[in-house]
């Protein structure tokens, strides 16, 4: 019963959040200078032409009226037409979403594996030079932003030792007939490993660039949390039972130390998704973020709105998943 109430409450707060985001974005992109119609017309267009197109897209009405019209459409699943691409916003955005999702999830996986491994290493060798090395590398990784890592990686693995593709999502020469836009997911399910290898070769550098700062955060937080847990009585008790250090860290301390890290990783993952905007641009990766930059350059208001709403929805979903995971991993919350 309480679970249902919790869920409903969550649904309501999500709706309110999305509405707030929609209002702010809607107003802001109309208040800042730049006219979407002027961007699409050739230089010789007359004032009458501009006015005609303005009316066609509804830009002659007040912002409040425009918002009501847009909201009415959204309620029926219509997010409007993209001005620059002349296609429905919903199909454009949903078409690009899988690319960004795959990139973000791969980046998250890399970050969790790298950060987790570093944290465990630092805990196992705590008080030695290895722990110092973990601290220093995490500090360095954290102080350099993701797009700079992107440039470093391009230099390393694109120029000096060109093993990975530096742009795009998939080699155009590859014979592909995907049913969905989840290329990687689909290729894995259909066991097309040559395609998987090509996708990974494209995705690896942008994903790694996004992952490195997050991995550093995970390493620092989890190591700190583990070290605190290692002093607790139940860990000491496990020691007297004859378990070795590896078992004590991974089985006794880790399940408890992971909890405080998890919440923060959830928040940081939303930052990672935000980071895809620049990283996708850097690697010409055909995702949502790359499309967002084009939309902003072209003042494609309906498209910007659609993308921002989708990002906002993504962030709330990530938070929801984190909360659910937390409840699953923490028995004290399960019955509460």
């Amino acid at each position, binding site marked *: 019963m309480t679970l249902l109430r919790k869920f409903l409450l969550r649904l309501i707060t999500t709706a309110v959040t999305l509405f707030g985001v929609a209002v702010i974005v809607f107003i802001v992109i109309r208040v800042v200078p730049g006219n979407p119609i002027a961007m699409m017309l050739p230089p010789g267009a007359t004032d009458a032409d501009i006015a005609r197109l303005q009316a066609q897209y509804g830009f002659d009405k007040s912002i409040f009226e425009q918002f009501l019209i847009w909201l009415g459409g959204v309620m029926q699943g219509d997010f409007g037409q993209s001005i620059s691409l002349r296609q429905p916003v919903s199909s454009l955005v949903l078409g690009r979403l899988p690319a960004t999702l795959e990139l973000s999830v791969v980046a998250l996986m890399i970050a969790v594996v790298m950060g987790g491994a570093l944290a465990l290493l630092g805990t196992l060798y705590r008080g030695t030079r290895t722990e110092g090395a973990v601290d220093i590398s995490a500090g360095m990784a954290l102080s350099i932003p993701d797009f700079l890592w992107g440039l470093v990686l391009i230099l390393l693995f694109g120029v000096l030792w060109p093993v990975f593709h530096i742009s795009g999502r998939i080699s155009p020469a590859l014979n592909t007939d995907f049913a969905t836009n989840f290329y990687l997911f689909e290729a894995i399910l259909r066991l097309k490993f040559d395609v998987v290898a090509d996708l990974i070769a494209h995705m690896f550098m942008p994903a790694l660039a996004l992952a490195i700062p997050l991995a550093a955060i995970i390493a620092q937080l989890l190591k700190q949390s583990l070290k605190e847990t290692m002093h607790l009585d139940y860990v000491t*008790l496990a020691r*007297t039972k004859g*378990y070795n250090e590896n*078992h004590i860290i991974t089985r006794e301390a880790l399940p*408890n130390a992971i909890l405080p890290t998890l919440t923060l990783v959830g928040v940081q993952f939303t930052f990672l998704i935000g980071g895809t905007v620049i990283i996708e641009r850097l690697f010409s990766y055909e995702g949502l973020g790359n499309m967002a930059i084009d939309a902003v350059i072209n003042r494609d208001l309906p498209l910007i709105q659609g993308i921002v709403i989708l990002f906002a929805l993504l962030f709330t979903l990530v938070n929801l998943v984190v909360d659910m995971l937390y409840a699953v991993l923490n028995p*004290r919350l399960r019955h509460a």
Partner: protein
Amino acid sequence: MSGYLSVRNLTVALQTGEPILRSVSLNVAAGQVHGLVGESGAGKSMIGKAVLGTLPRALHVISGEIWLDGVDLLKLSPAARRKQIGATAALIPQDPLTALNPSKRIGPQITRRLVDILGWSKQNAQARALELLDEVHIPNPERVMRSYPHELSGGMRQRILIASAFAAEPKLIIADEPTTALDVTVQKQILRLIAEMQSHHGTALLFVTHDLGVVSKVCDSLSVLYAGKVLEEARMHRFFMHPVHPYSAALLAATPTYTNPIDSLLPVSETVIEAVEQEVLEHDIRASR
């Protein structure tokens, strides 16, 4: 006298060289209960930790021997020491609220080590855990096995930890102030339970406490510790009749009586403390030569 557990001239110090335990020797005979008393900071718990290999990283064993079941633990490799301790000794911890892993059910916390370390079958371990929970008077053991620690009271958790300590039939159990964190009413029950389990299983027990009253109830012999130095090791009745060390006598005199609790509550006199401090100092000078 050489016991099942025999600590000989054990010196433990901080990295700075400051001694925490000063040439400590003590014996726990098989099946006997040996009390370890002293004020807080005297290093009582550190002896238990040194034996079980759980000393904090800042502390180091400088010299000495720890014989457990005929083996000097300090001469073993870390892995072999862990095995030896896991197979022959167990700990009843001080605070039952923090000594159970909050993310695991009770059942596995008792049975896992039987399966993992001692190679029991799962069924045997499960049956053994149920039997032990029944033995420590826990009602409805099946349900408790499926519970998480936060669902149980402090007294229940201490019973579980006692059951868990006896699970592998260790020859030695170290009880580190096992009643200090509990309510006074529960303390008595737990104390009685430990004594009952000890005599039933015939386990040697090293009972660490600051409470002489508790020692007089459960112990066969005791050591008095001050500033990491054993001042006196004695059989129980002899100690209470004729304490040899002035500090021991002062401790006994300081124990309040029921008939006259206020006036009988004497502090240990300064002259005694000074004498003991002098003794510790002389020991350090001898040790540094």
